[in-house]
């Protein structure tokens, strides 16, 4: 078996609050993502999901831990070496209103990465490449010269995806990319993600709290609670055979499409207890790990 595209070991990052109080946002997290694979990262707000995304992208510096990407240690890269890594690791943001520069024409925003890495020989070629990216994400290339405020939320998210795709990345970290969108648009964007994966073998770290979407999109799932992964495994195993009480509580809160089932089922509550000092992930079935 080929080595995974991304290997993260014992990653940790804490923040110091104003009163000197230390928050362990990410506290010893390890996971793998294979080429062409999607790992769904779920958990409540503040569980450290987004911080993991930022650490993997090297937008923030981890306190400890190893990040190995495409056979290369990237945890300590700096300066030009880090800049050279950027194209292979891209990000799609939650808020399509904040993630585009309001003063730049969207074509310029998408072209910025290509220009920064000298990937277009001249202005005409650059424009053609950007137009092709627009077509690929289902946007009209005639709208290149518009400003972000002229687009809807779903269209802006497509622009954000086009910007991420421009550099032909191997891995895209998608941080709640559909949360801010209308329900009718969410499915379109999810399908776009799936198409892109089929076409170019992209890997995704898909951060979300919508379990239904994660189930639809992910090959494997990791459930986070207070900076730790409490359960991880193949999507089917985690959803059908959840072992950790927190995972079960999350799943019991998932709305069911059938109203009778929805009314009949019982919601579980999970009262957070401190992790046992010796808590570690144990493999319960092949590939399915639970903290205990």
């Amino acid at each position, binding site marked *: 078996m080929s080595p995974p595209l991304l290997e993260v070991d014992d990653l940790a990052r804490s923040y110091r609050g104003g009163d000197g109080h230390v928050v362990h946002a990410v506290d010893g997290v390890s996971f793998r993502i294979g080429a062409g694979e999607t790992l769904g990262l779920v958990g409540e707000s503040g569980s450290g999901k987004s911080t993991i995304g930022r650490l993997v992208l090297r937008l923030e510096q981890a306190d400890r831990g190893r990040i190995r990407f495409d056979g290369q240690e990237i945890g300590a890269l700096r300066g030009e070496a880090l*800049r050279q890594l*950027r*194209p292979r690791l891209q990000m799609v943001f939650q808020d399509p209103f904040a993630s585009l520069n309001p*003063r730049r024409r969207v074509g310029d925003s998408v*072209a910025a990465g290509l220009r*920064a890495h000298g990937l277009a020989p001249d202005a005409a070629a650059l*424009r053609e490449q950007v137009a092709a990216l627009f077509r690929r994400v289902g946007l009209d290339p005639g709208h290149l*010269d518009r400003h972000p405020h002229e687009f809807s939320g779903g269209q802006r998210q497509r622009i954000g995806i086009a910007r991420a795709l421009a*550099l032909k990345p191997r891995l895209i970290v998608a941080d709640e990319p559909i949360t801010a969108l209308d329900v009718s648009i969410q499915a379109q964007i999810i399908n776009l993600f799936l198409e892109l994966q089929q076409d170019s073998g992209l890997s995704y770290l898909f951060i979300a709290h919508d379990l239904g979407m994660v189930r639809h999109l992910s090959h494997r799932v990791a459930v986070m609670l207070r900076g730790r992964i409490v359960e991880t495994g193949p999507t089917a195993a985690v959803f059908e055979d959840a072992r950790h009480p927190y995972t079960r509580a999350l799943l019991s809160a998932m709305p069911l499409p059938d109203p009778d089932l929805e009314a009949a089922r019982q919601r579980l509550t999970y009262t957070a207890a401190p992790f046992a000092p010796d808590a570690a992930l144990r493999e319960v079935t092949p590939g399915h790990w639970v903290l205990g």
Partner: protein
Amino acid sequence: MSATILQPALPGTGLLARFLRRRMAAAGAALVLLLVLACLLGPALLPFDPLRINMRARFLLPFSGPHWLGTDELGRDLLARVLSAGRYSLAIGCLAMLLSLLVGGTVGLVAGFYQGRIGAVLMRFVDGMLCFPSIFLLLTLAALTSPGIATTTLIIGLTAWMGVARLIQAEVRALCERDFVTAARALGLRDSRILLDELLPNIAAPLCVAATLIVARAILLESYVSYLGYGIQPPVASWGNMLQKAQQYFVSSPWLAILPGLMITLAVTGFNAIGDGLRDALDPRGTR
């Protein structure tokens, strides 16, 4: 260089049209344009030399003879003087504004973007500069240098940039929290590109506001300095030193003070109106 490599720039007429649609802005622009034209062309068109003394025609009343706005204590034509004074006042105001925008904008941009040690050092320096009351700083510097247009501009520019630096630093800090700056970093853009292409266009509006406030303030500061005898030296007129001379005759000949005072007021008001209009017009969402 520019952020707009991709094809046609935003049509200038669009911006101009949006600007002129605002009545105050259009009025301010007209006022400033009128002032500038009058100051540029006026002294050449008038039949009187602003420096020519005529002791037989002192303190002539406005609208009373060949001197439209009367004459001063040495019989010099007041209109010619006030317009040639405007050349210096406006030029110093604008040049000092450019200088402080350049210095303050750069310091603010860099300090806001590099929030670590570089930003802290820069902002402490700004705080240090702000500790000196600017009038005293201005007067001390003016007293130590030889008076003139260049030194007056330099002194005003270098004492007025701290406000801009603070404003821009706060603005840039807030912008750096936004996802599009994170996205730019994730794309691997160089810092210079992020500063110039992503951040600079987003601080255009506060820069414009700052610019107008500074032109207005620089005109006032020039008046202070000249009023106190350090800036533009007589017999060359500036609005400030005209005011100073006029105060001796204020009871008998108030128009000598009212006229330069009115010019200062008009210039300051006009520049402020322009700034407000420009801020609105530059906002791409401002489609009213």
